[in-house]
């Protein structure tokens, strides 16, 4: 039987890979993918904790489903923004997007 810790190690690695990617990548799409990694690692945690710590209950799974739904919506919005930015500026490098600041 696969123990809970193995899942957690995988999700932690995913989480930090996501954070690292979010902090270091300068491309908006890459950053978005990193955010997705973070969210997915959290989803895994929810499912795992529910499965191992509170068997018979469903809150964790539901929450995972919620998060998946929301992240899908968020990704759609983000992609829309990115595409719009790309159309306007021909560029999706964060450094070059200073116009949004003002």
């Amino acid at each position, binding site marked *: 039987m696969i123990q809970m810790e193995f899942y957690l190690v995988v999700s932690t690695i995913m989480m930090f890979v996501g*954070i690292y990617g*979010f*902090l*270091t990548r300068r491309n908006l799409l890459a*950053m978005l993918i990193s955010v997705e990694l973070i969210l997915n690692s959290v989803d895994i945690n929810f499912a795992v904790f529910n499965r191992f710590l509170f068997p018979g209950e469903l809150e964790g799974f539901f929450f995972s489903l919620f998060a998946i739904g929301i992240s899908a919506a968020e990704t759609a919005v983000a992609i829309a923004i990115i595409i719009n930015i790309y159309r306007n500026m021909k560029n999706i490098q*964060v450094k070059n997007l*200073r116009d*949004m*600041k003002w």
Partner: protein
Amino acid sequence: MDYTVLILLLPFLSFILLGLLGTKLKPVVAGVAGTAVTGIVAVLCYATAWMYFSAGRDASGVFPQVIAWNSEWLPFGGNLHIDLGFMLDPISVMMLVVISTVSLMVHIYSFGYMKGERGFQRYYAFLSLFTMSMLGLVVATNIFQMYIFWELVGVSSYLLIGFYYTRKEAIAASKKAFIVTRFADLGFLVGILIYGFYTGSFSFTPDSAVMGAARTMLPLALGLMFIGGAGKSAMFPLHIWLPDAMEGPTPVSALIHAATMVVAGVYLVARMFPLFIGYAPEVLHITAYVGAFTALYAAVVACVQSDIKRVLAFSTISQIGFMIVALGVCTSADPHEGGLGYMASMFHLFTHAMFKALLFLGAGCIIHAVHSNEMSAMGGLRKYMPVTHVTFLVACLAIAGIWPLSGFFSKDEILAACFRFSPVMGGIMTFIAGLTAFYMFRLYYCIFWGKENKELHAEHTPHEAPKSMTFPLMFLAVVTLVAGFIPFGHFVSSDGRAYDIHIDSDVAALSLCIAVAGILIATWMYLREDRKVADSLATKFSGLHKAAYHRFYIDEIYQFITHRIIFACISTPIAWFDRHVVDGFMNMLATVTQKSSWGIRQMQSGYIQRYCIWFLGGALGLVVLLLVI
């Protein structure tokens, strides 16, 4: 004696009225109004004097001090308060007569002299203001009232000197006169503060019971007050404003800068005389030395000036020096014991006011005729202006001290008092009296005799002045002729008792001799058309002549002090300091705030990733912190 309030009120009202209506009035109306008011005031003053002296002496044989009215004007808390009042005693009554007489004469004279001048109404308004303030000064019931009117005469003098306000010299002279006397008044003010604090009142006769602590401070207070007096009375080294003050219209010079205002300092010392004698005789003697030096200095300078009003100005300074000396050499309050000088000083004040006003008014006629102040434009005027000539000669003889003119009697008393004090002082003063005779007759000859400036006179023939101008001359000349025979000691003396003036024959002979000698030398040097002797002397002692002509460079020293030191070394650095250091500091605070806020703003870069790093770092830091603790 309630009517005496009119003596101050009428000129004041006339000032307000003429000042407010200004050019809406016709010049003649303004002049007549001003003169009429002064005339009424003069009549009131004569009546007051008549009533005061005819009321007789009290049991101790003195004329009592009468306070006609007195009311509190400004309370200071405690016992101190400024009163405004009207005090009559022999010297204030004497001054009332002098001021109102000269003022009236000047008012009349100005009709002719100022005719057609722009600002005629303003001129009469200022004259009224001056008359009011000067009268208020002499009848002051307390030292602070005196100070109030003292400042007011200062300002009316300022306004009148600067009457021709479009002329640069007049502006500078008026400014100088006001600031120099103001500076001296600072001494006066501090003196009053000390006096008021220690004696507990501003009265001239403090309660002798409280004089314990005051005794040590009183000499200081009186000394400081004398500085104020020295400023108004043009004592060396505060005399520099007076010669420049001649930029004003000539009648003004006669009234303010010869007869009345400039003797305010003498009057102040006389007013405080009992205190000087009682508590600070040494200060009194210092004033004598100051006066003697001033008299000598001014007499020497007067010998070489070429502007006739300047000569008269220095002669005034010198004569005031005489009066101060006479007061300063007093050693007791008894006229028989060494208090003679007091009476002599007041007598000289009286006679000098008359003949010096006469000299200035005469000079005014001459200037009116030749349109110049310089002696080079004159000469030989006796043919053209007989009245002026005769009256001027009378005044010259009087100031030189020739019997039986008034100056002889008063000057003789002064010299007698000086000899009684010390022979050296007597000798010096006699010498100065000789110098006086010399420079006055130099002036006289240069104006009325000597070489005529034909070209100038051909262009514009000098003529005698109109009646309005010659009448005051004749009146004052008559006064000068007879004033010497007034038994002045019966009215004014240091202890208030009657004192018979008797001519000290030795002193009189000596002073007469030296006066005649002075006149003869002047005659020898200046009577003829060519002045070989004078010119050769001037070239021989060219250094001294030049120095004296430039008044020993005292003005330049002042100029240096005010411009180089006060303006350049104090004011400019302070202004710089204010703008750059004090204000710079405030601006620096602002700049530093702005800079640091700029620095902090840099953290708000807008890069979400950078924020995340800060956030992550912070979170990790907190975790570590929690773990450690």
